[in-house]
């Protein structure tokens, strides 16, 4: 039994040292302009989603799900998010594609995150990605309107689309 423990200890040390040596030799590729391998993507995205699910508020969206909320959120989205996440009705963002992992294109692919999870991600950002925390820029209510809007992409009521485009972001 003692020998098993010694072996376990040695194995652990070898793994940690091996990882550090690998990193310090510069063998880890750090460039952003390469596609994320499928397995890596699956692990990353499910890890992030699991963590967000755990941390996101249990509170329900305090805003009514009406056109007004969607338009408020949509203007905010046009103001600050389209650069990376893409604009409704336009081709996907070239800039968002240059991050590793790339920025999800909400106008094309419905998010798997609930509104509360989108709210939490927008407020606090996502570590080790290009997603910056917006909590010091926007109020909670603004972020809830944004989460409502993103939750409704890519199928916006035509009235909402018009409302956003008629009053473009300042």
């Amino acid at each position, binding site marked *: 039994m003692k020998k098993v423990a010694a072996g376990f200890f040695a194995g652990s040390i070898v793994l940690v040292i091996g990882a550090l040596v690998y990193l310090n030799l510069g063998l880890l590729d750090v*460039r952003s302009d390469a596609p994320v391998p499928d397995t890596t993507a699956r692990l990353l995205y499910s890890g992030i989603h699991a963590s967000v699910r755990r941390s996101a508020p249990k509170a329900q969206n305090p805003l009514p799900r009406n056109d007004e909320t969607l338009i408020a959120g949509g203007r905010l989205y046009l103001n600050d998010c389209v650069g990376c996440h893409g604009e409704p009705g336009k081709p996907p963002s070239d800039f968002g594609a240059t991050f590793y992992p790339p920025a999800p294109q909400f106008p094309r692919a419905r998010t798997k995150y609930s509104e509360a999870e989108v709210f939490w991600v927008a407020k606090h*950002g996502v570590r080790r990605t290009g997603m910056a925390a917006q909590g010091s820029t926007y109020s909670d209510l603004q972020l809830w309107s944004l989460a409502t809007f993103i939750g409704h992409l890519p199928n916006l009521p035509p009235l909402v689309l018009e409302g956003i485009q008629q009053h473009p972001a300042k």
Partner: protein
Amino acid sequence: MKNFVLGFTVAILILPIGCLAYFAIGFSQTRADTKPSALETSILQSAVRASVRRAAASVPNPPPANDDDLVAGGKLYVAGCQGCHGKLGQSYREDHELFPPAPQLPHTGTQYSEPELYWIVKHGIRMTGMSAYGPFYSEKELWSLAAFLRRINNLSPGMIENIRPNKSG
């Protein structure tokens, strides 16, 4: 000996599986509005440095930059980089929004050489907010930006004036 090998193998298998389980269950923290630990920062920063050094080793040295190149690079910085990396001539403001935080280059300067800076701007740094600018800048622009970044914490007031002619800090 057999027992030692058994323990060794179990460790090699269990630790990676444990790590994966830790992430899959959602125990890892994802919020970006906190500070990375000193240990994490030192391990990952040196990994990035080592990797960039290796990758940029084949990048040829740039043609020597003149003042016009530096001004051109500075203008690119003002237009495309300062939002995350800090404005020229402004007091230090720590980044609490990205994780890892974007280095505030006008204050910290950089340890990277010009070929390494060229490489970083062109290809980006994975799993940070640093995206790849290769598709958006010409080679000449990338080199002028690299030359500027190399000297960013060491610019003469006249140079800053030339870069931002209408603003006085």
